[in-house]
């Protein structure tokens, strides 16, 4: 009784309170997310200011240059391949790891630690270790393949394997992180479901496919969105392993953005590339919000 009357009487005051509470966070969000997104869009229609020359309106010229730039399209292709490989691989492995860790196998703590450790290490640090793994002739991978009698291979130096090599590093880094979310979800599953299925005589695979997997859908969705964002955000290892090479075989969109914006100082073109990235991520967000969210939740 008291709550409703005070809220009606003081709703104006409460509104102000609410906005005041919200203000600091909202100001910063707008300043560093929303406004830059809009400003980037605007900047992409101007030329790059250079030395004493100011920026001039050039319309869609930056986009035209982009459309004709083979390196940009290479970056798009690379990123799509990278996403297509890392997303299912890391999610699949994460699920597998979670299932294993959830069961009481011997040495469970060690196994869980091994799976999760890559997550707490800085990517830039582990990339150095992976650089050694991939070094031709005496790198660790080479020593293993050499012991097996296989020929030497320049993993990071040939366009056919370089992208795969950095994909592996990304999957290694991410799977453990996603595993935790699956682990949490698995532990909230009602154990009586298992009993019921066992009594019905269902096989383990059937139990997984028809019971566990659908119930894990919300988690899978959450993990999927994270994986997609990371597929476009994770470029730290490129700095150490390949620097975008060989011949742009491992140039990812964000890395290309960095090169154009901070090595070539072509800020207008970099803005155009940013717009592309933002559009891609927004589409995924909208897709998640409007399509998947509606379909997935049970309760």
């Amino acid at each position, binding site marked *: 009784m008291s709550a409703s009357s005070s809220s009606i009487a003081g709703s104006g005051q409460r509104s102000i309170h609410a906005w005041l509470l919200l203000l600091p966070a909202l100001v910063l969000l707008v300043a560093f997310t929303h406004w830059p997104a809009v400003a980037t869009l605007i900047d992409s229609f101007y030329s790059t200011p250079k030395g004493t020359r100011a920026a001039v309106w050039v319309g869609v010229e930056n986009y035209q240059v982009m459309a004709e730039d083979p390196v940009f399209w290479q970056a798009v292709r690379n990123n799509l391949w990278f996403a297509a490989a890392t997303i299912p691989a890391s999610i699949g492995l994460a699920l597998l790891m979670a299932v294993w860790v959830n069961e009481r196998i011997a040495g469970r703590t060690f196994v869980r630690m091994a799976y999760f450790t890559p997550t707490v290490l800085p990517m830039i640090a582990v990339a150095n270790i992976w650089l050694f793994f991939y070094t031709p002739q005496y790198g660790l991978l080479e020593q293993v393949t050499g012991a097996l009698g296989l020929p030497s291979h320049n993993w990071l130096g040939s366009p056919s394997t370089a992208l795969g090599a950095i994909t592996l590093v990304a999957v290694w880094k991410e799977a453990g992180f996603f595993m935790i979310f699956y682990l949490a979800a698995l532990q909230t599953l009602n154990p009586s479901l298992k009993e019921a299925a066992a009594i019905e005589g269902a096989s383990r695979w059937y139990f997984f496919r028809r019971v566990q997997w659908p119930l894990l859908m919300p988690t899978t969705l959450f993990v999927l969105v994270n994986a997609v964002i990371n597929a476009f955000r994770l470029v730290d290892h490129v700095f150490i392993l390949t620097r975008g090479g060989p011949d742009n075989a491992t140039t990812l969109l964000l890395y290309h953005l960095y090169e154009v914006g901070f090595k070539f100082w072509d800020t207008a073109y970099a*803005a155009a590339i940013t717009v592309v990235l933002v559009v891609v991520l927004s589409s995924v967000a909208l897709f998640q919000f409007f399509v998947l969210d509606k379909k997935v939740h049970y309760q």
Partner: protein
Amino acid sequence: MSRSQAPAVIYRHTWLDTVAAWLLALLWILPLAYAFWTAFHPSDYAIRFDLSAPWTLQNFRKAWDAAPFARYFLNTTLLVALILAAQLLLSTLAAFAFARYQFRGKNIAFALVLVQLMIMPDILLVENYQTMARLGLVDTLFAIGLPYFASAFAIFLLRQTFMGIPKELDEAARVEGASTLQILWRVYVPLARPVYTAFALVSVSFHWNNFLWPLIITNSVESRPLTVGLQVFSSVEQGVDWSTITAATLMTSAPLLIGFILFQRQFVQSFMRAGIK
């Protein structure tokens, strides 16, 4: 159906599971294991796995001398603390507003917050860099942290948590004459403690390891965090000395790694809580 007759363990894992899980675990830990090997042995043994090789701390000494890691450690610690403090403060206030207030434009405001979940400040490098330049903040710790102070993730989590706290507790406190902020501090915050811990661990891990934005926004040693320092250190154009670099790598990862190993269970549980929706 008596309970004692139900199978004690249903769908038990097989030995195949165990072997496979272990194999994967060993593969997964291999890079770190290699780093340990190389960092603690002289550089001659970097690629030779001779078990009788002598142990040494020399690589750590070399790495420590070669770059101002002490300063980098200080910078990173301050940075992570600053970001966490700001995030906790701002997101608590904002989440409380979303959870307990009705006001015009609430949904729009919330939608704006959600945008940041997808479009992180990292993507908007170029523009954010120019903003910092205009504010005169380039090459400061503050500039590294500022874009992250408002965390959509934290707001989201806390709002969820706050909404689940029974309103009766509110009213009880209000009857005792508590102000809004006092209610927030005395009722909501303590009840959300697990979520705060979870978020803190996520935030610290993320920002300790963050690289690209700090790379661009810092120039000098005074503001450079560990990740940038490590990359600057390991990109010497002369031959890479694996031993020194892995020593440096272990040094920079050590705090999080040690923290994780010691508090493994809490760590895992925190991350799990952060994901539960």
